[in-house]
């Protein structure tokens, strides 16, 4: 039987401004509630919810940080002249060539639990000397499984080319123990090419480009853009003008090399870099090491003293 109802006299949700000078007592009527709006029947907060909350806070914080970084970058990129003064960039020694770190996973793709094999197809008529030097450097840093093969398109290859990567590693029967594979195939190709992951990477063509890729694996790329550009500039000069140019161009390059090397021990300054490797190999291949200017000869001697050029000298004999 419905009872007689009286309309509420006062609304139940009046907000009372409690004075803050007084201390508060916990509410005796509702057991164990805290100030949070979401309390369960028994008064405890679901730990999962708390964790979720914490995660949300964390994500928000990181988002704010990221936004701040992107804003800063945007500013730098859109107004380079205003914010970045090239003259104030330090010309000091770049990060050391051999002590940098490289993230193999980011350069070569996720490690799928098997040997990561870099395949290089080269023509035996024109051996890639700079890649042999880089191979020697890579062997210092990583466990590299090197192998040399002769493709059926070539009928015979002189024996020094078969042993250009050095003696076979004792553990070469267990491919899994190595971090990196370096497979050199002597093949009848017009242009040197490198293949790594045919599903996700297109082949890299040209000795200079493959050299740049391998150099990155050493974690030794110059960080500052000026040095990086200079390095690329020297590499292009060496490959296009020194190796493929006429005798006049070669003489010009040798003169500019001489001039640069008069100012500093290496082409980029105080540190050895890919520019030195590629340029030295091109000078050696052109066969003008004995007739080169004095600074160039001194520089070639320094390269040889580093020890990684032994494979090159043995091939040139």
């Amino acid at each position, binding site marked *: 039987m419905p009872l007689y109802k009286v309309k509420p006299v006062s609304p139940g949700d009046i907000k009372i401004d409690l004075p803050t000078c007084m201390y508060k007592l916990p509410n005796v009527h509702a057991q164990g509630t805290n100030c949070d709006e979401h309390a369960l029947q028994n008064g405890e907060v679901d730990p999962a919810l708390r964790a979720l909350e914490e995660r949300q806070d964390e994500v928000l914080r990181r988002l704010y940080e990221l936004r701040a970084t992107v804003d800063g970058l945007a500013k730098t990129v859109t107004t380079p002249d205003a914010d970045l003064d090239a003259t104030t960039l330090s010309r000091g020694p770049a990060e050391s060539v051999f002590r940098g770190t490289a993230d193999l996973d980011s350069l070569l793709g996720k490690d*799928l639990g098997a*040997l990561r*094999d870099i395949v290089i197809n080269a023509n035996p008529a024109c051996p890639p000397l700079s890649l042999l030097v880089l191979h020697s450097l890579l062997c210092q840093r990583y466990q590299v499984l090197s192998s040399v*093969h002769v493709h*059926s398109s070539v009928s015979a290859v002189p024996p020094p080319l078969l042993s250009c990567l050095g003696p076979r590693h004792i553990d070469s029967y267990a491919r*899994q123990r190595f971090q990196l594979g370096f497979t050199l195939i002597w*093949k009848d190709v017009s242009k040197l090419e490198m*293949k790594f992951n*045919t599903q996700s990477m297109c082949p890299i063509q040209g000795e200079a480009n493959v050299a740049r890729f391998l150099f990155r694996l050493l974690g030794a790329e110059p960080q500052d853009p000026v040095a990086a550009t200079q390095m690329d500039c020297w590499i292009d000069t060496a490959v296009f003008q020194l190796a493929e140019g006429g005798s006049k161009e070669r003489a010009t390059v040798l003169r500019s090399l001489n001039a640069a090397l008069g100012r500093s021990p290496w082409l980029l300054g105080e540190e050895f870099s890919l520019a030195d490797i590629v340029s030295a190999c091109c000078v050696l291949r052109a066969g003008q090491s004995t007739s080169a200017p004095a600074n160039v000869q001194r520089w070639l001697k320094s390269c040889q003293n580093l020890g990684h050029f032994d494979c090159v000298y043995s091939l040139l004999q």
Partner: protein
Amino acid sequence: MTKENVQGAGEEEQQAQSKKALKKQQKEAEKAAKKAEKQAKLAAEQQETDEDDFAKDRYGICPMVQSQQKLDRALVRVQDLTPEKAEQQIWVRARIHTSRAKGKQCFLVLRHQQFTVQALLAVGDRASKQMVKFAANLTKESIIDVEAVVKKVEQKIESCSQQDVELHVERIFVISQSEPRLPLQLEDAVRPEGEGDEEGRATVNQDTRLDNRVIDLRTTTSQAIFRLQSGVCQLFRDTLINKGFVEIQTPKIISAASEGGANVFTVSYFKTSAYLAQSPQLYKQMCICADFDKVFCVGPVFRAEDSNTHRHLTEFVGLDIEMAFNYHYHEVIDSITDTMVQIFKGLRDRFQTEIQTVNKQYPSEPFKFLEPTLRLEYKEGVAMLRAAGVEMGDEEDLSTPNEKLLGRLVKEKYDTDFYVLDKYPLAVRPFYTMPDPNNPKYSNSYDMFMRGEEILSGAQRVHDAQLLTERAMHHGIDLEKIKAYIDSFRYGAPPHAGGGIGLERVTMLYLGLHNVRQTSMFPRDPKRLTP
């Protein structure tokens, strides 16, 4: 008046009769004239034949060669007919490939194995009309002896293999005549598949070829294929003998099925039954335990598998190798792959003519390989397949489509049609495979692939009787049946490994053909027992 009419009619009748009679007489006269003409012509021809056949003794069908006399006559092979022999008068024995008469001339194409040459017979002072007629009527595929003068030609004869010379025939005799209706035409059998459909000309399908194998084997393509196959066998033997291997012959009638009872043929053996050997495996291993160190054998292998695929036969020629090694089974892999590379190099360098001949009918990419042979580990293969989107477990065996895909991936990256996949999972290999010492889930076993298809399955064998017994029990094999096998390892056995290839399959894959019956002379499969 009627009388007059009657009279008139009678006269008319008489006149009509005489008209008819006249016509009839005329017709008869015509007929007689024709007949007389014909007779006269025949008589004239007869006279001609009898008169003009001055070349009667320079052609004809020889009596069957029953070694009636020993003629000291040198026959020149068609292959050797070159401009150097110009103006020489020589004898040639060959088959008639085609013959075509044109007025007073007859063009013949003579064929011997893969080589053809054009021959010309013209009416003149050496040859009569009857002789030319005789030559034109000879059936294709007949074997003939021809005496002719070799003549140089100014324009190359594109359709023959001997393009710079032509034979001018003086004498022509038939040694063995062929029946006029051939079950298949050789030009059709050599025609490439696509061409036939386009121009409405026939090609011959495989069953017809196999039913009439004797004629099909005469085609240039078949000659080239089987000469190359002979080369494979010879290179295999030569390379291994040079490496110090000993050739052995193993029994093919055996008492117990070795690997699994399902795929063996049973033969009745006096009062009991025996089996045809599925592989020479057991006997190869026994030879190693008998201190022969390095053995190989070439012989038939019988597999009673009811698979009607492009690459399975019930009987094929197996080339098997077994070798004792010092410390690591890779010594054996290196030896086997080096043998294969020597075979490929030998074929590449010495059999180019045959390869080109086969490519004319069955075009394909040339076979590429690396030296030393590429060896990948099973895990790397699985990683490559996963990178290409295939989902498979670590210990799962490779299915045929996956093998083909892996072959394509390896070809893309390394540009080789031949490679070895090492360290297969133990679970998918036979009981006598040696497990990997460092990882019990894997084994010291390997497969070799050509153009993405498996050609060799091999492994390091378990040479310890106790371990072998354990592994056999693990696989649920009846120990009684393999007692003799296990016994051979009880008295000191060296560590050894090996593998075997199928001659037909290797030839098929090297040439890029698509059906193993093309490389088996008289193939055997579940549906074919003859010829």
